[in-house]
């Protein structure tokens, strides 16, 4: 029996009208996240990762808007709700963790005030009860002496501790899902490991679905169950982490993994693979497969037609090389080398 997903995004398109034309930072994006599952979203700067997250929680700055597609939370559409309804979903049913913890914290209120308010509003508890819950929440995320630290202001915490507080806040109302956008990018390696472990443990214990956005391939490899790779606003590959990171299908995913230096393996002095060029600007996205000008394996179909997501092992990849019609092309292209 397959469980229905907590979050289901279908053919999502985000558009931003500008004087020079309509930009599409998110283009026909689809994915599901099940309860207790971590979906990692990777891709280089400008790929549309944050914009996808913002679209899910209804936080796209006008004039940007969701132009088409659907977002469903446990089966019910949330992309067409009124702003006031959406506000109630954020914080209560969807928790959020951003790169800058101060984006989620009010510098003028104590940590306790903020946690207690969230708990009171969303769980309908009384003050004294809410305070107890808030202390328990801080203990759970590993704040030492939580019963004293609860009356401190955000600036009295270190960066890592602040991010713990934000996680406590994001989970306080027992949300069905959590969106974490680069939650550890500003933190030191040792603290990053703590925060990632914490996020994963808490979400698993509570069966929350997690969308983890990051450009750090290592964090994704260790944390995600499934991975979506984004390029120029589209999902170009999606599948189980072992496949997408360990044996990627799409040439862009292959390039990303090959360009990432590693602390393990014996490849210390092996040269990093380069992907030539850079992510295209939104106003000049190449025709056909948007990756074709940078792709080492592009062939004649690639600049004419955009590839749909095609099956490749247990993953889906938007690359013509994965199309059965092109399998003969792939083989004949590699055959001469093989014979040599």
């Amino acid at each position, binding site marked *: 029996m397959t469980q229905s997903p907590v979050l289901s995004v279908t053919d999502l398109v985000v558009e931003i009208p500008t004087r020079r034309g309509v930009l599409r930072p998110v283009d026909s994006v689809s994915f599901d996240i099940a309860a207790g599952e971590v979906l990692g979203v990777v891709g*280089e*700067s400008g790929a549309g990762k944050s914009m996808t997250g913002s679209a899910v929680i209804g936080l796209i700055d006008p004039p940007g808007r969701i132009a088409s597609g659907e977002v469903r939370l446990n089966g019910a559409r949330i992309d067409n709700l009124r702003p006031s309804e959406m506000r109630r979903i954020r914080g209560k049913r969807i928790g959020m963790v951003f790169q800058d913890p101060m984006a989620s914290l009010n510098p003028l209120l104590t940590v306790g005030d903020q946690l207690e308010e969230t708990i009171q509003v969303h769980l309908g508890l009384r003050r004294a009860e809410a305070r107890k819950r808030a202390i328990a929440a801080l203990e759970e995320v590993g704040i030492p002496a939580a019963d004293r630290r609860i009356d401190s202001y955000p600036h009295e915490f*270190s960066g*890592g*501790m602040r991010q713990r507080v934000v996680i406590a806040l994001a989970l306080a109302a027992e949300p069905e899902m959590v969106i974490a956008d680069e939650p550890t990018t500003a933190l*030191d*390696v*040792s*603290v*990053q*490991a*703590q925060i*990632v*472990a*914490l996020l994963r443990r808490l979400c698993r214990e509570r069966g929350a679905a997690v969308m983890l956005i990051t*450009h*750090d*391939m*290592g*964090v994704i*490899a*260790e944390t995600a169950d499934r991975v979506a790779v984004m390029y120029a606003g589209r999902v170009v590959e999606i599948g189980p*982490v*072992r496949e997408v*990171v*360990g044996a990627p299908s799409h040439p862009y995913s292959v*390039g*990303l*993994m*090959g*360009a*990432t*230096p*590693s*602390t*393990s*393996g014996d490849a*210390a002095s092996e*040269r*990093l*693979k*380069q*992907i030539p060029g*850079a*992510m295209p600007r939104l106003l000049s996205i190449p025709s056909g497969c948007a990756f074709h000008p940078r792709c080492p394996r592009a062939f004649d179909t690639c600049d004419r037609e955009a590839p749909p997501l095609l099956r490749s092992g247990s993953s889906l990849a938007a690359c013509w090389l994965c199309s059965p019609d092109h399998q003969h092309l792939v083989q004949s292209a590699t055959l001469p080398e093989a014979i040599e």
Partner: protein
Amino acid sequence: MTAGPRPALVRADHLGRVFDVSKPWLNRVLEGEDRKLLHAVTDVSFEIAPNEVYALVGESGSGKSTIGKMIVGLLQPTAGDIAIGESPRTGRSTRLQMIFQSPFASMNPRWRVRDIIAETIADPSIDRGARAGELLEKVGLSAEDAEKFPHEFSGGQRQRIAVARALAADPDFIVCDEPTSALDVSVQAQVLNLMRDLQEELALSYLFISHDLAVVRYMADRIGVLYLGRLVEDAPRDALFAEPLHPYTRMLLEAAPRLDAFGREAPPPQGEIPDPIDPPSGCAFHPRCPLANRRCKTEAPRTLALENRCVACHAVEEGRSA
């Protein structure tokens, strides 16, 4: 730290830097506060040989940038010495350059790229425009880019311009302070490969500063690990990764996310970096160290010189590993 077979190009000898972070005098008097001193760098010694890449790795606030700035003379040490040797390539004194993390901050936005690059050319007999074009091609841009302004380039391209500018001074030695940490992985790979190629081709030496162990592993011949301003371990790259000796180095290696460790659930490291104004007594790492004992809490470990590497840890000295 030990004298190598070849004379060092750059030698840091018991280097230290203290910052006075006290409030102004009047405030201190009124609020009855003491002077506050921040020991950003304490007793750091290392040597960099000609044609060698020496990396300093450590978490934020460990003193990496402060050391880099002292080496190139942007900041005065408050203790110790820096000895800059003679360049074996030219016979004259070693020329130093520096590349920063955010190339934009170090470029005048109103200058053309040609002038930004040519600024460091010392020799008046050189045709500056031609040289700038030549260097742009060397770093993978085109000579025509010399006429453009910095804002017309992407982050990776600007970092290439910063490399070209450093090369214009015909340096022997470049301090690279987190040169790729603002870049995407694919662009980072381009810049790191470029820097490695140039290092080989021009027989350069680098002091390569980074918080990213994977990047350091890719670039360095030798690595120094900093914790709260002190060098806790110094070893050749392969030795450091194969057999890290200092408990902090081990913790860093253990915590670094790995591409091949799917679903790894190693217990994360303990604690956070302490306040540098009020560092722990004894070995500064002791509150987070799984091997700490009574001696670690009171006595700062001395630097133990082993064959081709150094480490400052009581547990290593005492032969304790648990």
